[in-house]
């Protein structure tokens, strides 16, 4: 039995449809465990063709009996995305209902906006994340968009304070470099994922250490991005000296659960802002299979 998987019934499942196998496999598993009364399924318009088949199958899973509300989101139109999420949650989620977020294939920006909108309704949130068997060998994403601070999760910035950027890294050191180049922070705090899953040591840890070998002032720390509480504790401890006197911006390019940990950090510290680093192109062979499911409560 997986000690990290414990899921209970909730009223609503919110997911973002993808063409990846783990989206359907994960949703099928959730149907039995969660027994929702409604499913809200977003999908990104830019990848509508790729996700079409999986969306149709997902509709069939829950039909009849459980309505599946479908809504479009847009990678390149964050304003529309924010409005669609806010309107959908406003319309289809009742106050204090319980909500399960199926975050496996949910972009981090969507995770944060959905969390904020659902939480504003006083709902309890549990999350489910499905690890794939493997990721694409050559590339996962490319063509980065300009990093952006997430609407309404933008913290409270002091006037003319230096910036501190915290990044929980992923497999692409260029995206981390892009964030540093864009925000030109005084302090950079980098959380490196522990372990060698998915060749993490070579593709993430070593790549980042090499990419930033000239930047001697960086604060490095180890993190287990698959564990929300330990990630939160690491972030708390590494930002302690910066949170009062600098403008702190946070982002995750690593495991999706670490994005939830950063959201919790933002809830604990209203000053800190969440930043999203978009990619305009994603590999169609992003991942395959479903290896392990992790879950928890926010």
């Amino acid at each position, binding site marked *: 039995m997986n000690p990290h998987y414990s899921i209970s019934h909730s009223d609503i499942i919110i997911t973002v449809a993808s063409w990846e196998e783990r989206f359907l496999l994960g949703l099928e598993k959730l149907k039995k465990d969660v027994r929702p009364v409604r499913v809200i399924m977003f999908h990104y318009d830019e990848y509508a063709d790729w996700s079409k088949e999986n969306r149709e199958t997902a509709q069939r899973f829950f039909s009849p009996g459980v309505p599946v509300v479908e809504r479009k989101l847009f990678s390149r139109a964050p304003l529309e995305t924010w409005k669609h999420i806010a309107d959908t949650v406003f319309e289809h989620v009742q106050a204090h209902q319980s909500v399960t977020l199926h975050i496996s294939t949910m972009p981090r920006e969507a995770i944060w906006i959905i969390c904020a909108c659902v939480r504003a309704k006083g709902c309890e949130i549990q999350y489910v994340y499905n690890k794939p068997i493997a990721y694409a060998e050559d590339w996962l994403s*490319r*063509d*980065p*968009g300009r990093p952006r601070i997430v609407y309404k*999760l933008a913290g*409270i910035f002091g*006037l003319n304070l230096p910036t501190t950027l915290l990044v929980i890294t992923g497999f692409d050191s260029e995206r981390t470099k892009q964030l540093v180049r864009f925000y030109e922070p005084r302090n950079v705090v980098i959380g490196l994922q522990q372990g060698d899953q998915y060749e993490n040591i070579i593709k993430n840890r070593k790549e980042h250490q090499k990419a930033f070998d*000239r930047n001697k002032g960086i604060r490095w720390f180890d993190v287990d991005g698959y564990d929300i509480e330990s990630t939160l504790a690491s972030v708390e401890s590494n930002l302690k000296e910066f949170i009062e006197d600098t403008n702190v911006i946070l982002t995750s390019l690593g495991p999706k659960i670490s994005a939830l940990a950063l959201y919790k950090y933002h809830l604990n510290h209203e000053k800190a802002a969440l930043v999203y680093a978009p990619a305009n*192109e994603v590999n169609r062979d992003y991942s395959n299979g479903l290896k392990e499911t992790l879950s928890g409560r926010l």
Partner: protein
Amino acid sequence: MEEYRNPFEYEAASKLTPHQLLEYYIEDFNYSRFVRSKRNVFLVGERGTGKTMALRYHSLPVYVLQQKKKDDELDLSIISVYVPCNTPLTHRREYELLDQLNASLSSEHFLVLSIMDRIIESLSEINEFLTSDDEDHLRGELSYLLNLEIPVNVPFFRALRLAFGKSSSDAQRALNTKTDAESSLRNLLSFTSGLLPLLTCLAHLPKLSNSHFSLMLDDVQYFNPYQIKAMNSWISYRDNSLFSFKVATTRVEYPTLETSSGGCILEGHDFTRLDMEQPYQNKTSAFAKMAREIISRRLATIAVGKTPEEYFPLSAEMAQDIENAEAQAREEADEKFPTGTTKQKDDYIYKYARAIYFRNRASKANLPPYSGFEVLVHMSTGVIRNLLDPCYYMYDAMYSQWHAESREGKPIFDSIPSSVQTQVILSRSTKKWELTKGELDKTIDDCSREDARRVYQLLDNLAILFRARLLSEISEPRAVSFTISNFTHDLQAKLEPVLTVARKAQLIYVYTSSGKDLGRREVYYMPNRMLWPVRGLDPIGQHARVSIRAEHLWNAADKNKKIPFNEKEEIDEPTLFDFT
């Protein structure tokens, strides 16, 4: 253990302390007379061209320190206030969720407060600036005019900054609310209700009665459209006796000149534009002089007592080979112009000696031993950061070697051996191509895979063209910049996005100069010369530009087709007025 300090550090100027700024900055009168003027000035240049350094050097805290060091009396006739704009507050985007009026008001509010806070922070640097009478007056006037609650029992400037901070936080909190932000936004300050009253009140102080406030806004390309329009409206303000704006922006994201009222500010009328990128052409150009001074100043910090040329010596082998090539060129000139003037012959040697050197090497397999200060300056392509980059890595290589040998004491390197220079130059050049080939779509905002491929193919084909020219007996073999001919609207629409990505990545720089028709400005393109060493090209180009048809550039970029090279091809020779 000695703390490692690389004298060629080129971290963002925003991270340097006032002391370091004074230590490193080379004052350039061409800029400083504008920065310290009462005019509105736009400083335009890509990253690394020294905009931030120029602005920060003239800011009040650095000026105060400078005067203190000189033991001079503080002249407050111009008070320069540095306002960095690449801040998270600038990057907030909630204005997009608001109606136009509130979007405009809240955007201006944050901008105005940031400037006001910087003004007060800067004035705090002056010792015993306010008498208690001044303080009482200001407190009364400002709390009335700004409608802010200024805390009592706190030093006045600190109290004022707390009030500004609170006003900003209140508005941000309102924007963060999940419900109706518009109704929560209150007491928003604008230029006329915040900044202007503050400046007017300060000007009533006896010490500032003749002062002019030069408000230096850095990185305005990050402003949102409402902030750009607001700033332009302030710039269009006719009376510049009390304040003016110095605005630094990148060229590739040059902001619109539209004002809030729908008007437009005009260069020459409302503001003066200063180009911070300078084409480097020869040892006597302004940039060459500045580059030399910058490196000299950096060398002074490690007290080696060497000139830049001594510290970065040219390889003996290369020096000898170039001397031989010059002798060969002289012989050819004598043969070609038996009755020619000295100038004719010297021109010939200038044009062909280095080309002969590269041609003679063509049969040898290895790349030239690139080295020497002159090569470093040319490779910078007129950008200070590009000048310091290889120097940094050369010093770092020396230090790594010293450290690996477990040597004791303080490392002192009298010079950088030419072999180390060559190794670093080739490695940085290779790195540039790696960026070009595989990383643009990962690092440049909104650069598609297709455009990344096109930029690489364009530069690759330019390298092939320039190499072919270098090895040919043509009139301008070392030309490494180009102009675009037959640039139709259709081709412009295709090629511009590719050139924009290349400019954002600082792989191509764009300059203007006087064209052949007097009075007409001509745009020309100069690829980053750091690209050339690993392709066996001469980073020391010459005063010439290759005219290339737009369709050939597009075919090179899109279809990876070679750019046609005809040895009889025309070259745009510079006019007398170029490069001055």
